[in-house]
């Protein structure tokens, strides 16, 4: 600890600091979110802020972005003390933020979103939409995502929306500091490459980046400086070139914790699910899923990898009965089924952990307990009467099984951390006693520790004989957890790998098939 303190002082002595927080303390009633934290943002560098969920990085970020005001402490921009009362103040000082949870207007189109509240006008009154469209197109082309400026945001995939969010910030004039909160959490590998290139360009323009991420490999690649928070306190600040991943993990969690990596073995259970030439037409021509065939065995973890828009999520949705218009044959334990309704698929033994926890997984107005039993309530009834004891037993068991950290199960779901909320969503699925578990990006936006726990949970249920399909855009995650991986590209199945064949090169190669421009970037 003392050495690092010394190191930090040295770093501070440089005059390369664009924005500095000094002794920032933030006390919420009942908790100290930040405890006298110093934070330096180096000019034209990527400054990584890292820590487990609840370490205080969101709070610190919110203070810098003017969303929250510190209880104590000062913020300096280019050596001058500044007071940020709201986001408008921050924007005027050239501080921009890209939130992890997207802040877009789904009911408006792309250019309206990008220029919201900084509209260009003719004669100061009439909107200059021609200019908006031009500029939006320019920005999106720079981001290598030629999304139509007139497309409705609600019709874009999550990853594309993220690009719009980035474009929105880049449209800001005189940007000095750009805060990115887990910008890659919903991006595919190719999109991450684009983002990293954009970050490089921003750096060259002298813009300082504050980068928050849980993906350690990514941090090592892109970061210049790293600041680690733990329990609201500054633990360390270091130049990335002087450190390695174990050092980060050690400082983050307080002790070295390594990710459990599942040994890949050939699974010999009997066939649970067989899908033959599953086809889902796309609105406006083409196919979202194009003759996809695969099978799943008992106890097997099947990874599904692919770029954004490859059809990963749609594959899961079709299996859950959300696209009854899909054609093709699906056999569950040898019997042909036609997925039409979600409730029917759940009865047949499918459980679905959706991609977007807040919007699709949880009912925020219900308690932790009720969120857990929501899918399986009919299991605890006598006639139509809900038997409290039966329900409570199940809840207690699942909380133990998944080691969900719950103070009181009657509290609102909001009282849990992201990782524990995700475990609740998984628990809800497990309580329906499924045969097949479909997980769509199960570790999105949760910290390293929680990620490892989610992996453990998945492994445990595979051992119990469940067939598991995991969709992920995080390469290392797919590789470490799957027994077998199928790769989708443009709706087609372009590769199937097992055992030693599962390598980053193989997956990336297959995921780029049919995406010539993407492939070119990778080679």
């Amino acid at each position: 600890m003392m050495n690092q303190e010394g190191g930090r002082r040295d770093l501070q002595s440089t005059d390369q600091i664009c924005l500095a927080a000094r002794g920032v303390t933030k006390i919420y009633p009942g908790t100290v979110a930040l405890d006298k934290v110093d934070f330096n943002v180096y000019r034209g560098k990527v400054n990584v802020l890292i820590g487990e969920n609840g370490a205080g990085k969101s709070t610190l970020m919110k203070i810098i972005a003017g969303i929250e005001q510190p209880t104590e402490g000062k913020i300096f921009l280019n050596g001058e003390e500044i007071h940020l009362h709201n986001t408008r103040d921050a924007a005027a000082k050239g501080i921009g933020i890209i939130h992890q949870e997207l802040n877009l207007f789904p009911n408006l189109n792309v250019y309206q979103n990008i220029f919201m509240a900084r509209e260009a006008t003719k004669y100061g009154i009439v909107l200059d939409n021609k200019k908006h469209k031009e500029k939006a197109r320019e920005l999106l082309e720079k981001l290598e995502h030629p999304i139509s400026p007139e497309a409705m945001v609600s019709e874009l995939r999550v990853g594309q929306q993220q690009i719009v969010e980035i474009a929105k910030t880049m449209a800001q004039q005189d940007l000095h500091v750009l805060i990115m909160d887990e910008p890659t959490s919903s991006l595919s590998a190719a999109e991450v490459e684009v983002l990293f290139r954009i970050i490089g360009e921003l750096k060259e323009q002298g813009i300082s980046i504050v980068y928050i991420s849980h993906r350690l490999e990514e941090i090592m690649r892109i970061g210049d400086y790293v600041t680690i928070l733990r329990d609201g306190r500054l633990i360390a600040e270091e130049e990335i070139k002087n450190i390695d991943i174990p050092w980060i993990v050690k400082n983050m969690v307080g002790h070295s914790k390594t990710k459990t990596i599942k040994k890949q073995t050939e699974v010999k259970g009997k066939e649970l699910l067989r899908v033959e030439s599953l086809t889902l037409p796309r609105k406006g021509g083409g196919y979202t899923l194009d003759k996809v065939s695969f099978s799943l065995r008992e106890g097997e973890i099947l990874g599904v990898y692919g770029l954004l828009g490859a059809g990963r999520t749609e594959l899961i949705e079709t299996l859950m009965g959300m696209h009854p218009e899909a054609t093709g044959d699906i056999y569950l334990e040898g019997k042909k089924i036609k997925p039409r309704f979600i409730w029917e698929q759940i009865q047949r033994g499918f459980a679905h952990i959706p991609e977007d926890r807040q919007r699709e997984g949880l009912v925020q107005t219900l308690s932790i307990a009720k969120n857990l039993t929501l899918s399986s309530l009919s299991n605890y009834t006598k006639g139509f009467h809900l038997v409290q004891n039966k329900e409570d037993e199940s809840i207690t068991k699942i909380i133990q099984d998944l080691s969900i950290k719950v103070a009181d199960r009657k509290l609102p779901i909001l009282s849990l951390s992201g990782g524990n909320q995700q475990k609740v969503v998984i628990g809800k699925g497990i309580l329906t006693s499924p045969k097949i578990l479909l997980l769509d990006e199960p570790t999105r936006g949760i910290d390293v520790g929680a990620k490892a726990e989610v992996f453990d949970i998945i492994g445990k249920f595979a051992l119990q004989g469940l067939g598991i399909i995991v969709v992920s855009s995080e390469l290392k995650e797919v590789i470490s957890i799957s027994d077998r991986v199928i790769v989708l590209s443009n709706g087609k199945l372009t590769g199937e790998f097992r055992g030693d064949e599962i390598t980053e090169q193989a997956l990336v190669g297959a995921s780029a098939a049919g995406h010539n421009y993407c492939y070119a970037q990778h080679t």
Partner: protein
Amino acid sequence: MNGLLNINNNSAVKKNNTSIGILLLKARTFIALIVLIIVFSILSPNFLTAQSLILVAKHVALYAIMGIGMTAVIISGGIDLSVGSVVGLSGMIAGGLIYQGLVLNTFGVTIYFNVLVIMFIAAMLGVLVGAVNGILVSKFKVAAFIATLGTMYIARGFALIRSGGETFPNLVGKPELGNTGFPLLGAGSVLGIPISIWIMIVIGAVTAYIFKKTPLGWHIFAVGGNEKAALLSGIRVNRVKMFVYMFSGFCSAIVGLIVSSQLVAAHPATGESWEMNAIAAAVLGGTSMSGGVGTIGGTLIGAFVIGVLNDGMIMLGVSEFWQMVIKGIVIIVAVIVDQFQRDLENKLALQTRNNSH
């Protein structure tokens, strides 16, 4: 480390204060009701007599029964504007069947039903209007506000068409036709308590049971809290929506029967703008207009506040115009305080989350 401990100690004290605060906030409508009763009994000596209290309770029962149906709809994330018209329509159908009977011109006969059969028909008619609302909202994805606005006009129109705008008077029935006994619903009492109040208690208890102790109840809360998540959890969202609208239609049809029985006459304009009282009762009782939150107990207290306020102001001789202004203010203040409480609770939830780290 010491500093941190101190802060935690302070916060424990603070937390106690906030929980007392939340308790007071939660009971606010009840407290408001007590205050109202005290104020009115001081200002108007007649207010606290058994006679006027029963009169107030009878009015309250009407708002409460409609409010219970409305609460179910609002919790599911919808709204039902048609309830007032259903009150009128159900009264007119029942009144017509008693007064004129069912005239079959082709056969040249008129059929008179037993009063219980008539009540059943009227109640089922309410369910039917609710079913139409439900189909519009779930199958055709019409916004609940618009769908029920439409059925509000349609039901009111049919109520007027039924009699050409006339009143069906003197609904006592004739012994030789075997259709007597209708006024009992409004005038009768069991154990000294009017039947309408018993109906309110029964419907309230059954609904509270459904809300707390059946999967259907929780599904209603889930649909209103997050429809997408409910759908993905395997809840048959359309069925849940059908149920709440049909239930709301049923409740208002019952109210229509009670009112026409109390008046011993059916007037087609009965129940005009009563949907606002039902919504107000639900909202005063803490039902969130964005869905997912609400209780039957709250709605009952809300209905009492509206009823006491109404009747108390009438007894005091407050002008009808001022009554409107005061009611409006009460509703707005209630919603503001409700929002305040919700923010406070969210803050507390986030605190426990932060503390657990």
